[in-house]
């Protein structure tokens, strides 16, 4: 089943590559010390690479949002209220127990439903909550001149940075789980193959 059109695959590839660069360079800025300054990439190079990758990521995010507005892809991210909690529970139980008992997917992938309920809620939180916050706080740090100096007596830059690293961390954890859950296809590699070729292979195929 052809599920991932070219523009989504391109967006996804750029997003993944830039995000990896941003994680490595972000960690490098936050955690290198004088004693291990040359580890990974080093501060100066990390700043340059981080800024560069961030700008590409922002442009890519604009592509994502625009694409979702202009094409049908946006509908996959719409969360229905009906059975919201019970559907999440069903999917969670499947991942933790059902799949080991050989049960079938409670929400098999189709052209109408690309994401299962658990996937949908995490993708929406990641792409429409964490990502905008990450980008806005990132712009605040890229151009500290435009950041509000104090918010209720606390430095605006500290709040901006804490928001930025917290969102960065949440999205890093998202990425780890995302990569792992991608091994849960019909074969461990089939979902990875899907996002490269565009074709989804399900257990039923």
């Amino acid at each position, binding site marked *: 089943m052809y599920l991932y059109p070219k523009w989504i695959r391109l967006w996804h590839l750029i997003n993944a590559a830039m995000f990896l660069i941003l994680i490595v360079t972000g960690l490098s800025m936050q955690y290198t010390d*004088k004693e291990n300054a040359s580890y990974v990439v080093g501060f100066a190079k990390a700043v340059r690479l981080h800024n560069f990758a961030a700008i590409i990521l922002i442009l890519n995010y604009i592509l994502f949002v625009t694409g979702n507005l202009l094409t049908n892809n946006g509908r996959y991210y719409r969360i229905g209220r009906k059975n919201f909690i019970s559907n999440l529970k069903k999917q969670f139980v499947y991942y933790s127990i059902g799949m080991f008992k050989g049960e079938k997917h409670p929400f098999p992938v189709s052209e109408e439903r690309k994401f299962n309920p658990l996937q949908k809620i995490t993708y929406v939180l990641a792409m429409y909550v964490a990502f905008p916050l990450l980008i806005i706080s990132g712009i605040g740090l890229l151009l500290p001149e435009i950041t509000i100096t104090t918010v209720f007596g606390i430095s605006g830059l*500290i709040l901006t940075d804490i928001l930025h690293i917290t969102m960065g*961390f949440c999205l890093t954890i998202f990425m780890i789980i995302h990569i792992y859950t991608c091994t849960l296809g019909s074969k461990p590699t089939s979902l990875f193959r899907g996002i490269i070729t565009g074709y989804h292979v399900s257990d039923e195929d």
Partner: protein
Amino acid sequence: MFRIFSLVSLLTLLSLSSAGSSTVKSENFVGKDTATFVSSFEADNNRCFKCHGQEKYQYANATLGTQVTDMMCVERIIHKNEFYSSNHKSFSCTDCHSEEYTKFPHPGQLRMEQMYTCLDCHGGDVKFAKYHFEEIDSEYRKSIHFKMENEGFTCWKCHNPHTYKISVRTATNLKETIAYDNAICLNCHSDYSRFQLLTDRAEINIIKEHDWLPNQASHFASVRCIECHTKINNNIPVSHLILPKEQAVRRCNECHSQNSILMASLYKFESKAQRHDGFFNGIILNSSYVIGANRNEYLNYISLVIFFVVMLVIIVHIAFRLKNRSKNIKE
């Protein structure tokens, strides 16, 4: 865009600065008599300020029988308010300058008089022992500025005795202190007419030289030049060993790290009153924010715990999948 920010910042530094050295003036001081200090030598000093306190002065030309109004040489103007806000405010002009100056016209040979240096008064005095002036002097003698002493470099080039006031030790607004201190350097390093009094070097473009520095404007407004351009000495209040430019700090992690050198330089006076709210080098947060130096201990722990829990869940999940797979193969 960064360049514009930098330029604006540099101009702001210059305009913010007050009395770093002789030509750096603040609007607060010029023209208005706002000094609150009452000098016991006020009447004596006023004889000098009458002419040297502003841009123009008047005198009676006895030979021609006329009243002359003339311009005071910029280098000879001491604004009263600046003087009475400075460290040397309690002095009489003639404590340091010859009594002969009370005569007008001033005798020509007075221009050749030997001026005092800092150590003439501050050296070997128990009252000033805690400031270690002798060590400041020996640091200065190792600094890049000392080699220009024959050309006329002295303490006064940076610390104008008429206007200088200690700043970082008593700072209530660190940003203003930084601007004040940086103006002392910029006074020569961004003013080629003064710079070339001491050297034949070509003009330095500070903005261009610091092009490599990300967020240059923020750096210029948040740290002093001497943070990177001097060697730290914990025995003296402010380091005076100005390094050759090749030896200036260029490694970001010198400041951007848990063990930031800023704690031993810009924040050394405040760092004694350390904050306890989970932030490393938290004192910096009162006036600034330094990536890498201001990590939060609690966030570090929380993020590590979350990371390991997630990894553990994944490993357990993988283990169950493998177990399940071998069971399926057997069946």
